[in-house]
């Protein structure tokens, strides 16, 4: 009769798990520190294979990259996760929206925490994107052959601001509607397309049918605006941003990896 200690041989248990057909079907190799394994760790992993297997020595220095592109992407992922949780509780309807936020804050488990995470991560993402752009400019990384990826980056910066702006309305409080009112009032001054813009009378746009009302779904920031901004915030803009992010990351590799002195 083997002792309890012998029967609970952890090393043997670990080995039987790691050698099992199920485990080996998921994970092709272990963590041995061999050059071959270091390469496999990257290329055999869907999430890591965006990276090259080897990278120029200067490119992993924090003071070169500031890690701001990665931080921006990490914050985006946090925003997706917390945003989906918020969507479970939130209805983009004039009568419900504010009450749902109150419910989130006081009754939903971790509701306040999720809302706080979403809000602060959004602000942090705006700052991280700016710093990323600053770093890329200061290292001249937009220069050939990376011109087009800079263009994609500017579009992503704009989309980040739009994401933050459309989300700003959703709490449906005074802060939200008046900030969005101030922001969207600009649209009615659009030349030709805004009712108060230059040459509006030549085109014949009216306050009810111009660039601003197309954005708001009416002449004021009202319930139709809330629904529109919700759809833009949760579906349209994140989808476009995600597609452009794929292009952005892919182009880094295709344009010769991270920039560096040649």
């Amino acid at each position, binding site marked *: 009769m083997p002792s309890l200690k012998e029967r609970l041989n952890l090393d043997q248990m670990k080995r039987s798990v790691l050698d099992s057909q199920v485990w080996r079907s998921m994970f092709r190799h272990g963590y041995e520190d061999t050059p071959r394994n270091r390469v496999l760790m990257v290329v055999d992993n869907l999430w890591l294979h965006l990276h090259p297997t080897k990278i120029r020595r200067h490119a*992993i220095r924090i003071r070169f990259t500031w890690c701001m592109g990665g931080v921006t992407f990490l914050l985006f992922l946090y925003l997706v996760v917390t945003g989906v949780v918020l969507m479970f509780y939130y209805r983009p309807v004039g009568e419900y929206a504010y009450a749902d936020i109150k419910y989130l804050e006081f009754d939903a488990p971790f509701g306040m925490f999720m809302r*706080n995470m979403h809000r602060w991560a959004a602000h942090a993402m705006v700052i991280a994107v700016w710093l990323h752009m600053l770093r890329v400019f200061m290292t001249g990384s937009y220069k050939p052959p990376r011109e087009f990826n800079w263009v994609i980056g500017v579009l992503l910066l704009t989309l980040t601001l739009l994401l933050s702006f459309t989300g700003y309305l959703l709490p449906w*409080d005074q802060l939200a509607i008046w900030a969005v009112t101030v*922001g969207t009032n600009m649209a009615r001054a659009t030349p030709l397309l805004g009712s108060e813009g230059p040459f509006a009378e030549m085109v014949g746009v009216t306050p009810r049918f111009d660039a601003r009302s197309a954005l708001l779904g009416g002449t004021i920031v009202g319930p139709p605006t809330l629904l529109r901004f919700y759809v833009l915030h949760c579906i349209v803009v994140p989808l476009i941003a995600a597609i452009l992010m794929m292009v952005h990351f892919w182009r880094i590799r295709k344009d010769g990896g991270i920039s*560096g002195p040649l």
Partner: protein
Amino acid sequence: MAKEDKVVGSADEMAKTSWERVNDKVHVWPYLTRLEFMCAIIITILLVVWSIVIDAPLEEPANPSVTPNPSKAPWYFLGLQELLVYFDPWMAGVVLPTLIIVGLMAIPFIDVNPKGNGYYTFHERRFAIFTFLFGFLVLWVWMVVQGTFLRGPGWNFFMPWEYWDPHKVVALTNVDLPYMLGFRSYWGQAACGAVLILLWYATIPAYYIWRRERMKNVGLVRYLIKASLNMTMMGIVAKMVLRIGLNVKYVLVTPWFNI
């Protein structure tokens, strides 16, 4: 290369041949992945602590009949809201933001300087860095800070120690620049404004002709785009100086739009 330049890596690294530099590589696993992991952990801890300690703001329910004073756009747009002091909404809210986005996207195509690609240097690209930092730090970041902390009720300017008095009286003594210069008739003022604006942008071809030798590797089209964007950005500064220093309302007044 000047010795004050901050180039990534040591002087030894820059002394290497191009082949040596490009091929001096390390494995991504673990040297990069561990850094990314550390970065992710630090950001996560900061975000979680911040979210536990500070609650997101929530004011009274939306009420279209009660306008708060001041009404401010989200903080990252306050630089644009600040422009409303100096320009009409079609400029401040539509044309200039569009030019900012287009101008940023144009940067790689109008900056033909091959130096400074992939390392930090100020010395080798002074003009590009000065222009970008001026636009980013002064015209964008500073305007956001000012709009957030120094603009109070009525979008009036308040020092940090001043009370945000909603009844602060500010004399509106702004007049149009052509009027100040003595033009009294309507079309005389419009013509004067148009000439002033044309003179501002006439510096572009003038500079091209003056420096045509140097412009050969830039090209005419590229130069025109680059110089127009630059003069427009500096035009914002000029208008701000005129507005704050001389109480100028508009430079150009027409029946259709004012600048």
